[in-house]
């Protein structure tokens, strides 16, 4: 099975290499579709074999150190935190390939090879269990995305892709410095002085970072992830990149790439710096809640459908961040399933907008109106995706939002219910901007002559949307089928984080801390200690 995991990760890369020798556009399309479909089918096997009760990484491959004297190893595996996102990536890939079938006509082979490289990078990001490998895989996703937007994008594509690339890079370079510090620190304590980024060593209870160190490292890592997610106010690259990217680029960006930031928070930021994560939880909650309301309000007044969906992403990701920093299983599980949900519903929305764009070559809301009459099947799909996005119970979005809200309402770390209450206002606003957009695009009389010639979506387009729609309904009705994969992993991660926070906090009481650190860690320290005591009593 370890081999299968590696096959799944590298099969797309192999496909990309194959595309180098392909001259015919149609061949390139079919090969990409085959490769991504086979990858998905293989990955299903990983899903079926997954041991739900295990807390450790499964299908673990550990290679030899390859970076000089450093203990940096090739190390991939899947656990509860990563399984669903890994599957989301393999699931979306054939859909993305199909969605660009007719939309991309220039450098087709190049386009698809970029998509395939991007897939290997994304799968690597979710499977990597060495911090350094994570970093490398992450950079592997940035480069094809840079070209996807820069070559196949809209009018303003160069500006958009440079902004996206450089903005993200700045954050991640700062993180790289912090990463090196962590590597040396861990090496000193755990690995006989040899630099290490081995995941198992970094989260060992023996490895304790002091509170002052944690603060700086947390901020450096957090800055990088904030930009990638993006969290308000680091989001300004996102609407631009989404608008200029080709449909496939927008879909991958929304469905997969944005999840890397939130996943990294859950995987690295919180477990690596447990005390700082607890101390900064209210800050992140504040930013998340601002993002929810702010993203929704700005989305409401957008004139471009794609921009509207992009701003709605900022709002939705605010929910995810709020859930992660509530530090309980309900909210974290909600956050994880909400990542998947957002990938599906926003992915579907971008695909649908792309379908309309292919026909009309405009994305301005005012250029539409009344097209429901011309495109009944598309209307139904659009409606389902819209309703999923505004969190209608029975569809997937509700499950995530509800768990996040009920979890953060009950969070001992956040300490107040107001985050959840204000975030819930986002539920009203979401209905407002989505239904208003839907109405202006789909309903009313047809006011533009061009729209009278619109033809409904064809079999290929139906075929690529139906699987997403089915999953939207499936997750909405039987979310347990999906959340079961992460239940143990999330619970274990949170418990372990709290336990380590308590140990470090206890040790820190003997240190002399600067005043700001004392103030910053006072409350979270109490929380952490309290929890430890409760655990002992239980």
């Amino acid at each position, binding site marked *: 099975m370890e081999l299968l995991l590696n096959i799944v990760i590298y099969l797309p890369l192999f496909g990309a290499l194959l595309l180098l020798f392909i001259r015919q556009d149609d061949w390139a399309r079919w090969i990409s579709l085959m490769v991504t479909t086979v990858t998905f089918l293989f990955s299903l096997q990983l899903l079926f074999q997954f041991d739900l009760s295990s807390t450790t990484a499964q299908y673990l491959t550990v290679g030899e150190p390859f970076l000089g004297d450093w203990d940096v190893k090739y190390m991939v595996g899947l656990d509860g935190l990563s399984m669903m996102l890994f599957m989301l990536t393999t699931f979306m890939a054939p859909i993305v390939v199909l969605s660009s079938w007719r939309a991309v006509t220039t450098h087709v082979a190049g386009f698809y090879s970029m998509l395939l490289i991007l897939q290997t990078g994304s799968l690597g990001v979710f499977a990597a269990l060495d911090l350094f490998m994570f970093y490398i895989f992450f950079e592997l996703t940035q480069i094809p995305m840079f070209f996807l937007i820069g070559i196949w994008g809209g009018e303003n594509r160069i500006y958009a892709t440079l902004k996206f690339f450089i903005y993200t890079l700045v954050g991640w370079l700062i993180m790289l410095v912090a990463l090196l510090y962590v590597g040396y620190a861990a090496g000193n304590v755990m690995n006989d002085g040899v630099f290490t980024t081995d995941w198992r060593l970094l989260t060992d209870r023996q490895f304790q970072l002091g509170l002052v160190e944690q603060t700086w490292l947390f901020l450096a890592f957090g800055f990088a992830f904030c930009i990638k997610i993006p969290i308000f106010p680091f989001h300004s690259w996102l609407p631009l990149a989404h608008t200029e990217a080709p449909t496939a680029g927008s879909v991958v960006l929304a469905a997969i790439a944005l999840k890397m930031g939130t996943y990294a928070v859950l995987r690295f930021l919180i477990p690596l710096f447990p005390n700082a994560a607890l101390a900064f939880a209210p800050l992140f909650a504040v930013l998340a809640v601002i993002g929810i309301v702010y993203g929704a*309000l700005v989305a409401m007044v957008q004139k471009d459908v794609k921009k509207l969906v992009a701003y709605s992403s900022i709002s939705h990701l605010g929910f995810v961040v709020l859930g992660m920093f509530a530090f309980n299983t309900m909210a974290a599980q909600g956050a994880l399933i909400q990542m998947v949900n957002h990938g599906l519903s926003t992915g579907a929305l971008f695909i649908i907008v792309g379908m309309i764009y292919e026909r009309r070559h405009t994305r301005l809301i005012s250029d539409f109106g009344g097209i429901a009459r011309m495109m009944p099947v598309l209307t139904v799909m659009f409606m389902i995706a819209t309703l999923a996005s505004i969190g209608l119970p029975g569809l997937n979005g509700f499950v995530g939002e509800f768990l996040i809200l009920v979890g953060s309402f009950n969070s001992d770390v956040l300490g107040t219910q107001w985050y959840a209450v204000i975030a819930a206002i986002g539920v009203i606003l979401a209905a407002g901007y989505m*239904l208003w957009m839907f109405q202006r695009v789909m309903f009313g009389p047809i006011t533009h002559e061009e729209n009278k010639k619109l033809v409904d979506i064809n079999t290929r387009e139906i075929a690529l949307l139906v699987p997403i729609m089915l999953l939207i309904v499936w997750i909405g009705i039987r979310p347990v089928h999906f959340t079961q994969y992460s239940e143990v992993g999330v619970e274990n991660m949170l418990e372990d984080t709290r336990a380590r926070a308590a140990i470090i906090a206890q040790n820190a009481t003997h240190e002399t801390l600067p005043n700001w650190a004392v103030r910053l860690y006072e409350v979270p320290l109490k929380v952490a200690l309290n929890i430890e005591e409760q655990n002992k009593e239980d």
Partner: protein
Amino acid sequence: MDAYVHLVAWIVVIPLIGFLFNGVAGLFFESWRSRKFLIGAIATGSVFIPFLIAVYLFSLLQGESQSATITLFTWIEAGAFSADVAYRLDQLSLLMVLVVTGVGALIHFYSMGYMADDEGYWKFFSFMNLFIFAMLNLVLADNMLLLFLGWEGVGLCSYLLIGFWYTDMSKSDAAKKAFLYNRVGDFAFLVALFMIFQTIGSLRFDDILNGTQFFSSEQVFLIGILILIGATGKSAQIPLFVWLPDAMAGPTPVSALIHAATMVTSGVYLISRLSPFYMISTELMLCVAIVGGFTAFIAATIALAKYDIKAVLAYSTVSQLGFMFLALGSGAYVAAIFHLVTHAFFKACLFLGSGSVIHAMHHVEHKLHDAGKKIHFDPQDMRFMGGLKAYLPDTYKTFLLATIAIAGIPPLAGFFSKDEILVMTFNAGMGEYGAIYIGLWVMALISSFMTAFYMFRLTLGIFHGKFRLPEKIREATGSERFLHESPLTMTAVLWVLGVLAVIGGFIGIPNFVVASFTGTADVNLLSNWLDHVTLDADLLLGKEVEWMLLFGSVVVALAGVFTAFHLYGESELETPDARLAKRFGAIYQVWIDKYNLDEIYEGVIVRPVVRFSDHVLAVFDNKFIDGFVNTIASVVRFMGSVTRYFQTGLVQSYAFGIVLGVIVILSMLLFR
């Protein structure tokens, strides 16, 4: 009971199958769309079969004091949270199922005729079945979360069906408005769910009602208020009722089913379901009563001044729902449910009757067009009607029966239920905050006077006198020959509902009426039926007071009818209305303007928020947030543009620099 509870699952699932079948077949196979009879029959059957099952369960549930639960599967589970898809069968939920599927099946049947010419026939019936499915989830849910699924689900169907004729922008506006106002209520509802879960760790009704001692009195009040706000959205009460009159943009059967008989009563059902919880706090009960009393009054005043026949019925619905909330707030849950049931009968009858009228008026318009006359008139405006009783005899008779029923004239259905509400409000006046309850009772009396008045104004305006269209529009002379009664499929339904509006009240005859003749009596079927489910306030009044109140409400209702005949009996509408306008002056204008609530919400909340987002936030996002990033980038670029002069790539300038540096260092060494 447990042996039969699995039938409940079928009650819920069958409408879902109907929805999926008609929806999928209609969407993908165009040939299916023209099989109208089959589509309608499948849809109607999908509601009628659950009704039959419910009737069967009804016969089994006699004398049963325990509720039964069927758990289908775990819905959402994460950490400490868990909620099942589980249905609860007891007297209250079964009664609601009977109303929903019974009235629902009738309205489906009626729609087969009413919608016959519509190209979206398949879509209409699949949405209607989806609505029944959601509504059944709402009333059968065993926990608050599943109830919320039904709660938002019916909201969705309401949205889809109000905006059914989506090419008309004003109709899709009305649909959006309905959804958004409901969402405001749903927000409060959600927060209430969080609070309940935080306190008892569960959202099951059993756990909530058996665990009331775990809630502090502040929590009870706050949760109760939040749920009440949720209910004001769904059940169109102050301050969120403004969406319901607009919702009449949907096809008339939708107005009858969703916006009169079933969905809008969800709030009444929910609070009755939680009656032991609400009864804890007298302040909470008072809030419910005030909301209900004021809504009943205000909506009635607006109904006085409307010409659109569906608008009159819409405000009448809001007003009658207000009566139900008044009952809830007075601790009269049985009375509230009683009025819910009778109202479902007579209001569905009225709406379907108005549908029959609109159908006829549309036909007139079509025929005039066919005759080459390009005239347009609003087929819902009663100023163009009058004298229709000669042409639509069945519609007239049933409409009149339902009007008498809603006006509260004995012994029709509305009389018993409304009288019980008035009695119980007066009864609440004997307890805490008595003076306020007495005030609400007076308001309710005035409201029921107005109800009788505006309903007879409506009936007289539509059916009596002579046909006014030819007077109003000269070209339409002789157009009365195009008027015709609706087909039997529609009038048959009207008759069923009309008869129910007559006899429906006998399920809740007050015990004291019979007891006055026989000594003791136990004839109130409904009260006995709901005995184990709702927790009603005790009746403190003596028999004599009850008789007096009963006579009082009859007198008030008759006075309303009499006044209406006095003013509108002469087959005129506008002259008496002008007299009223003169009499009441500015207040009348307020009624016409619907208290300007729409304008206030639009002007104070919606437009400022949109404008703020557009002119402040979007600009801020562009200029400040993105501008800040760009500024950093340009600072870096500027620094680069300065330092680039040091990297010219010319050996001469580097050599010059070296020489310069050497001179500087040497001179520093020499002259220090």
